[in-house]
């Protein structure tokens, strides 16, 4: 039973972690190689990996999506540990509009222009920090969505994930607050209600005992000793 409960908990924690890892912003050190635009089908389940821009009709089954091709500095541990190795990464560039995830991104065209402006060759690299969310899953043709790009002087520039720091502080504060609310609710509302129920039940029980005692005595009075 305990193993079952722990397994369910572990799966829930994994799902929540994956959800946060997909949705929260991350930073990559990249060098833009090229940008392109390609028609994408949106009518199967991989739709979940594409955004829903505000100007898109609900019945649309395919549309053009902009992409940014880059060479990326590889890293370990969510980007905290840098590596010397390089790999390629392709980002999609889509408006999220007012929909999920809440990036409120409307500047796709401007971002594409900035990326184009930063294009460089391996001989004269121009490094930049790419803020993005999402995953590159080759199997399902899923791409992370680029949110912002900022030129940096050297690929070793320090990146502090301010948003994520504040986000997790906020989440911890929220959990503590909800816990305090729940404890207060239990102390002031649920426990007194349970006590009332218990008192009422004890009264009924005592009354029943008394009645039964009287009936029993009356019955006993008919039995000869």
């Amino acid at each position: 039973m305990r193993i079952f409960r722990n397994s369910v908990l572990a799966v829930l924690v994994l799902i929540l972690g994956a959800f946060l890892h997909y949705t929260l912003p991350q930073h990559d050190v990249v060098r833009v190689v090229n940008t392109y635009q390609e028609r994408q089908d949106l009518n199967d389940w991989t739709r979940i990996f594409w955004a829903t821009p505000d100007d898109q009709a609900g019945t649309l089954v395919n549309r053009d999506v902009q992409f940014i091709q880059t060479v990326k500095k590889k890293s370990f541990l969510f980007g905290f540990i840098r590596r010397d190795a390089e790999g390629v990464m392709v980002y999609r560039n889509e408006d999220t509009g007012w929909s999920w995830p809440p990036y409120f991104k409307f500047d796709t065209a401007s971002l594409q222009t900035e990326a184009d402006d930063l294009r460089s060759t391996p001989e004269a690299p121009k490094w930049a920090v790419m803020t993005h969310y999402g995953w590159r899953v080759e199997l399902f043709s899923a791409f992370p969505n680029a949110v912002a790009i900022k030129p940096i002087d050297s690929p070793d520039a320090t990146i502090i994930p301010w948003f994520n720091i504040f986000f997790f502080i906020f989440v911890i504060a929220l959990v503590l607050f909800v816990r305090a609310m729940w404890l207060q609710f239990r102390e002031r509302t649920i426990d007194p209600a349970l006590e009332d129920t218990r008192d009422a039940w004890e009264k009924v029980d005592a009354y029943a005992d008394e009645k039964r005692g009287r009936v029993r005595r009356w019955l006993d009075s008919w039995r000869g000793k």
Partner: protein
Amino acid sequence: MAFARLFVFGFLFLSIIYVAVSVYSRSIRREKLEDRWAEDHPGDETSPERDAFIEAGMAEYNASIRPKLIALVYVIPTIAVIAISIIVNVI
């Protein structure tokens, strides 16, 4: 359309939070008043004076600025949305 959806569902969600925080804040205040009375009048848990004391304290709380500050539940997320859209699109 998406904006209307965000607005409506956001408003409903924040309203639930608003009501929950209001109830919590009131409950905390009432408990404090009860504790204060119990400190000054040990053993008295049912007298009409106690009820009057607590009701007066709650009326004072309702008139103060504290319950109005809970409206920040609506204000802060709105500011956050505006700030995020400015940071993402303009800066």
